[in-house]
């Protein structure tokens, strides 16, 4: 009975809480176009002054990495500990390093 009716497409919403901070993913809304998506994001996600700037992007335009590939993508970074400052032994008396 449920005939395939078209629904308003899904958009992901990113909000900058204050200037100086990055935009952060907060959730999604439905809208027919970008203008409406901004309005809906504003009306839903900034009711309590949560933001000063909004990005919206069609959910279908996001490419996400595959969790199945997480090991291949992210684990090789694990043993490169020399990328972190704590890897290097510097005597305490040496300052400003």
């Amino acid at each position: 009975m449920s005939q395939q009716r078209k629904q308003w497409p899904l958009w992901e919403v990113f909000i900058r809480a204050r200037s100086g901070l990055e935009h952060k993913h907060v959730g999604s809304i439905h809208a027919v176009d970008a203008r409406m998506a901004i309005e809906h994001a504003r009306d839903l996600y900034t009711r309590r002054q949560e933001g000063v700037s909004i990005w919206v992007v069609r959910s279908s335009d996001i490419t996400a990495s595959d969790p199945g590939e997480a090991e291949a993508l992210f684990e090789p970074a694990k043993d490169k500990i020399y990328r972190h400052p704590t890897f290097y032994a510097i005597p305490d008396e040496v300052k400003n390093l």
Partner: protein
Amino acid sequence: MSASPAIVTHSASAELRFRYATYLGDTSLILAQRLGEWVGHAPALEEDLALANIALDLLGQARYLLSYAGEIEGKGRSEDDLAFLRDPSDFSNLALVEQPNVDFGHTIVRQFLLDAWQLELFEKLQASSEPRFAELAAKALKETRYHYRFSAGWVVRLGDGTEESHNRVQAGLDALWRFTSEMFAPGAADEEAAAAGLGPDPASLRAAWLANVEQVLQTATLKRPADVPFRWFGKRHQHTDHLSHLLAEMQFMQRTYPGAQW
């Protein structure tokens, strides 16, 4: 009720400021009340939220203006006394805003015509000789810009959407257009307020309003209805039957339980 020169010379009397504040405040209040009827019943959840946001802005304006009116009147009447204990004939809101919601098309047209008017009004009201009006206008102008963005967006979407939506929004426009003439007409508190430097001359708002409205209607492929000589004005306390019904509902608690605190 017409502007007699004798009153105008008492520039910005308390009595005039009271009448001007209730004119603007009642208009915001009654529209907020109408929008409140939508909450929980809108065409999409997103629109429930949008309409509630606009209602809250308008209600905020109304509270500011009615509190101020009560203050300036000096009889100890609060915003609630003015909202809930005045009779329909004491209200001076534009008749446009008391018109029923009918459907989303009518609601959007009503909102759009009012938003476009408030844009011009608040822009100019910022220069009011009364700081309280100027302050309200500066805040309300920002709110109105968003309301206008929302309602104009929907007028275009519905006008240029499907055949059904086009017909419905055109019907709303045809039904409501006659109520726009009072926005710019003389013979009420706003004209006197203009003479006293409290607010803009209502007639002066028309050109920009019309240009704006016509442009949006054109984009929306809608036809601007012809102007008709409609002269029953809410701002002169000449209301349609809808207001008393609206108030009967809105004022029910305060009328039923006089003197109680809520």
